[in-house]
């Protein structure tokens, strides 16, 4: 699998990553070689095996009762935010 510049630009857009002009050729090369490397998997005979999403077979994800457990930490959490006002997170205008 060889990727080109357009592929990299499309993937970067899907991943919401702005790439510098100088980065693009590097990623064209390295992502192409990674895909060639993992392409080896195609040859593995996996028959009817089920895909493995969790390393401990038979352990189901636990559910917890839907109860309020957290207390309000808004001020504390917002102390890490880049821009807040009146307890709200600020972002550029989305709706005109």
């Amino acid at each position, binding site marked *: 699998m060889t990727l080109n510049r357009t592929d*990299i630009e499309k*993937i*970067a*857009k*899907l*991943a*919401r*990553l*702005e*790439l*510098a002009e100088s*980065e693009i050729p*590097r*990623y064209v090369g*390295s*992502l192409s*070689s*990674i*895909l060639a*490397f*993992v*392409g*080896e*998997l*195609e040859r*593995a005979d*996996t028959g009817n*095996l*089920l*895909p*493995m*999403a*969790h*390393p*401990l*077979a038979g*352990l189901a*994800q*636990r559910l*917890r009762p839907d109860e309020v457990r957290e207390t309000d*930490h808004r001020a*504390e*959490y917002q*102390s*890490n*935010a*880049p*821009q807040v006002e009146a307890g709200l*997170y600020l*972002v*550029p*205008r*989305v709706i005109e």
Partner: protein
Amino acid sequence: MALQTLTDMAAALRAREFSSVELVTESLARIERSQPALNAFVTVTRDRALADAAEADRQIAAGKTGPLLGVPIAHKDIFCTEGVLTSCGSRMLSNFVSPYDATLVTKLKAAGAVMVGKANMDEFAMGSSNETSFYGPVRNPWDRERVPGGSSGGSAAAVAARLVLGATATDTGGSIRQPAALCGVTGLKPTYGRVSRYGMIAFASSLDQGGMITVSAEDAALMLGCMAGFDPLDSTSVERPVPDYLAGLERGGTARPLAGLRIGLLKEFFDKGLDPELEALIRDALGMYERLGATLREVSLPSLPLSVPTYYVVAPAECSSNLARFDGVRYGHRAANPRDLLDLYQRSRGEGFGSEVKRRIMTGTYVLSAGYYDAYYLKAQKVRQLIAQDFARAFEQVDVLMGPTTPTTAFALGAKTADPITMYLNDIYTIGANLAGLPALSIPCGFAQGLPVGLQAIGSHFDEARLLNLAHVYQRETDWHLRTPPEWPV
């Protein structure tokens, strides 16, 4: 420091031969002296460490006890620590002061441990050489022109240089065992789900597991006992009692303490690519195991050579999803003067992440995208099943699998940064255990050209006690783990 291990240190504190303030002061001084040479730390929490040490001394004076009461340790900077910078080695989080403690941090605090700082690491734990850190590379204490391994390179270098005698670490594809091997220290990756992932910044959630780097297996047993256990805050944490790992260590004087232990030699690990000098040291160590009573037999896991390509689909896929949360809105790096919301996302992420993290996010985005999901991601999950089944079959015949931890000793800084595949292949022997969720450790077993070599043991699920005991028995017979690098600056 005459105290060689955490176990020695805890005993000396209990006997009041040293105070916690003395030990913490010494640790802080060593960190400070080492920092220009090794760069093992991102943050040193001096004031808080001294205050906590003074409190530990008051508790000791009042007759209180705790397995690690007053003992200085370091946390890998992937673990959230309340009120302290938690950077994960990234520019993205270079302004993030965590509002809470990871469960593992809470548990070690409850055991009495005193945090002296946050250890440097590869950015978001993605790397095998500690060269991807936003805070600069860590250097190997045995040879400062060489890498310490990664991603827990700061933790491994800190213990190797005896800045602290124990540090937390994480292992997604070898990030505890590989740096432990390259730095000549002991590292244990527990079974997936054994140690809570709450507050441990996620890289690949079906593979990530917290553990530790220490001088000895006995110290690893001591720390694991404090760290392991069910946590309702981690939905994949396993509800299962924690055995007394220290009580499981052989204390008697029998000549063949490992009689009956069946060791499988992983054929695929000795096939090719392994440095012959390392192979000779590994075979010497296996000879020692035979003398200690174990039996050896070769075991083949035919799908094991597929573990690196499997990992480089599964891990980037999970990483691209986990790292989607860094959007420049609620915390972390934000680009200046965004034109609109999309620009805010793209530039904040483009500036905040380093090149290896971006590479993995894009690889993951690609293998999960429409048209490629089945061919890459689903296929890799099936091969993962194949690898897990190979391990399960092997454990029907043997109790533990052994082989090298790494194909070579520590390599030169910059030697493998140009080609990502060359770098990824460093983890060729460690990734299998992560894919199957198995516990595995690395212990020092000698030196090649003056550089440490690690012996790896992989156990079946939740068999940490057996792994720790067989490492402990080996360490009673050898002193590789007690060797220390030359002091710096020299």
